[in-house]
């Protein structure tokens, strides 16, 4: 057993445990926290896969930003009561479907092995990404920025109280 494999197993356990906890915990906040575990585990995988920059971004965006946003979301809405139970029939149908889906995909990817391994990813990883972004992918990059801007504005507009609603709120 190599050290790499050991690390993989540890990360795998962390990630899956986080996922399972998310599915099985009852309080919403706890679920969020379990997910942070998963996100961190995934970041570990990124490092193993010579993607330091992505790993850092993962930690920043997911474990940081998105989690915080979601926590805000939870706090702004009702969260005190426990997650209501879903019917067994529906759960069963979904679970069976997912297990079948898993088995089929698993069968497909179990022994997959593609081409040679890329060796130079860890060399100046961030630089490589930066070059790539500003050369080949400059247009998508700019578009993504527009998307982000739109999302920002959209989120503000959506979350802002309607003036009409406000008036009605005042009247009532």
């Amino acid at each position, binding site marked *: 057993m190599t050290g790499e494999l050991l690390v993989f197993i540890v990360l795998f356990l962390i990630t899956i445990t986080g996922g399972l906890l998310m599915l099985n915990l009852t309080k919403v906040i706890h679920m969020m926290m379990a997910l942070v575990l998963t996100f961190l585990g995934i970041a570990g995988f990124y490092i193993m896969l010579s993607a330091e920059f992505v790993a850092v971004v993962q930690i920043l965006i997911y474990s940081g930003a998105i989690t915080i946003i979601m926590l805000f979301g939870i706090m702004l809405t009702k969260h005190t009561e426990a997650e209501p139970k879903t019917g067994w029939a529906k759960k069963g149908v979904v679970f069976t479907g997912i297990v079948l*889906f898993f088995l089929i995909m698993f069968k*497909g990817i179990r022994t997959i092995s593609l081409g040679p391994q890329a060796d130079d990813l860890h060399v100046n990883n961030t630089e490589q990404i930066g070059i790539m972004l500003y050369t080949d992918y400059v247009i998508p990059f700019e578009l993504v920025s527009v998307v982000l801007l739109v999302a920002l504005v959209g989120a503000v507009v959506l979350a802002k109280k309607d003036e009409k609603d406000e008036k009605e709120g005042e009247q009532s």
Partner: protein
Amino acid sequence: MDYVFLIPILPLLSFLIILFTKPIYKKAGLVGTTLTGAAFLCSLVVLFSHFAQGNYLVEANWFSIDTVMISVGLEVNPLNALMLVIVTLVSFLVHMYSMGYMANDERYATFFSYLGLFTFSMTGLVLSPNLLQLYMFWELVGVCSFLLVGFYFYKPEARAAAKKAFIMTRIGDVGLLVAIFLLFWQTGSFELDVIFQAAQAGDIAPSLLTLIAILIFVGAVGKSGQFPLHTWLPDAMEGPTPVSALIHAATMVAAGVYLVAVTYPLFSASEVAMTTVAVTGGFTAIFAATIALAETDMKRILAYSTISQLGYMMLALGAAGYTAGVFHLTTHAFFKALLFLAAGSVIHAVHEQNIFKMGGLSKKLPKTAALFLIGSLSISGFPLLAGFFSKDEILATTYGDGRYVLFVIGLLTAFLTALYMFRLYFLVFLGNRSTEAREAPSVMLIPMMVLGVLAVVGGYIQTNWFGTFLGDWLETTPYTIAFVHPEAPFWIPLVASLLAIGGIAVAWLVYGRKTSIEESNERNGLHTLLYRKYYVDELYQGLFVRGSRVVAYFWMYVDRFIIEGGAAAVTYAVKRFGQAGVKLQSGQVQTYSTVAFSGLVVVLLLIAVLGGYF
């Protein structure tokens, strides 16, 4: 002879004219009487030209069944010509009589239009040269009878009686219909001539021929009120009395006898069928006569008497007495029509039908009483009146045919006939009970007088003394039928007369001498049995009416619960399937995506399994 067609057409014209001018023209009776009178004259002319020219037949194509052409036509042969005269004569007289009897009825015109339709149908029936046409008119007269019995439609009894009359006769009609079908497939034709030739040539198997003859007889039983389909005829007395005289005494009910006479070649070819006819006739004769003994309603007594006399005719026909049967049919038409019209005159005068509530009417209604007496004597077989000769002929034939049991029954019936007729006569016309009554107008009396004369002299067309004119004429037929002309023993007329007079005497002893007789409510067993008409009505009510209702309810519940239930189950299943679909459309994204994902899994599974990845 070429104006034979006028005979049915004139009454039809009467029907149509009255039907369409009903709201504007008030002289319906006159129109009907005139046109029927014209038809009667035509019949007379046809009768006499038949003596000169013999049989007559005209036919036209009607429609085709594939290659078989079905025709309609008019036929005159001795039997037809005689029937025509009887029908049109009685119809004419009844028309005339009704002008007085129905004068105050608000549906006066309707009555005459029905009478016209009936006369049309009856003459059409008589003139038919083929069985299909005969059957059509056969049903039509049934409908007219139905309409006229139910003429007082607001009376529930009339409604029930009309329905009963139609349905009971239809049961018989179905027998006739089946016989017609069988004959058609045996001979390929409805024409009587063709059928008779085939029967004579032996083209029809004997057993089948017997079956056909009996089926035809079933039709006759229904129409002529023979046992066991007799119960409608007494009930049919709910109709106006002239109708009872015309339809339920003289013409339509005699159509059964006529039918047997018309298809006589078929009957004479089968001994079993003949015996059936004779036994049914004889049994009906005495059966109905006994019921008439206990009946209290004037018209119903006459109705049972009609049944009994029709049984007599059947007995004659069954005993190979073709002439005797037709002869009695003729005389019976006269005296029974007379009796009914006279009874109508009484009812018209006193508005009462129970004979125990009448009495002493001979003083108030002398003419009616005299005419009724003539009729009663004639039907009882009093010597030298019409009924005497025809009854003798029947008794002689039965004796000559060797059916001694039936002969005795015939004699007994003759005695009973005299008894119940004079029971009726004495109770109604003698005694000194005083009832308000006025003699009928002459428009009613004249027809009765004409019939009275005929009831006296009508018998002389066929006697052993002055010649058997009627028989010689009737029996001119191209078919070989074994007509029986036994040498009647001299004692038969004697015994018959004695029995008739004996019957009258017994009636006198029981009913004639007393001044007034109350209807007694105490009845012994036999009397009750007779009074309840042997419980035949009750039996039918219980057996057939209830029976069919039970079956009907059974099927209705099967329909309602099993078939509707099955249908409901199908609809329920469809509905549930639809509801399941509706449930999926819950508006919840999760449900939608679950369905979409399940679809994906199914597709993947299919690809995996069919593609052999597993």
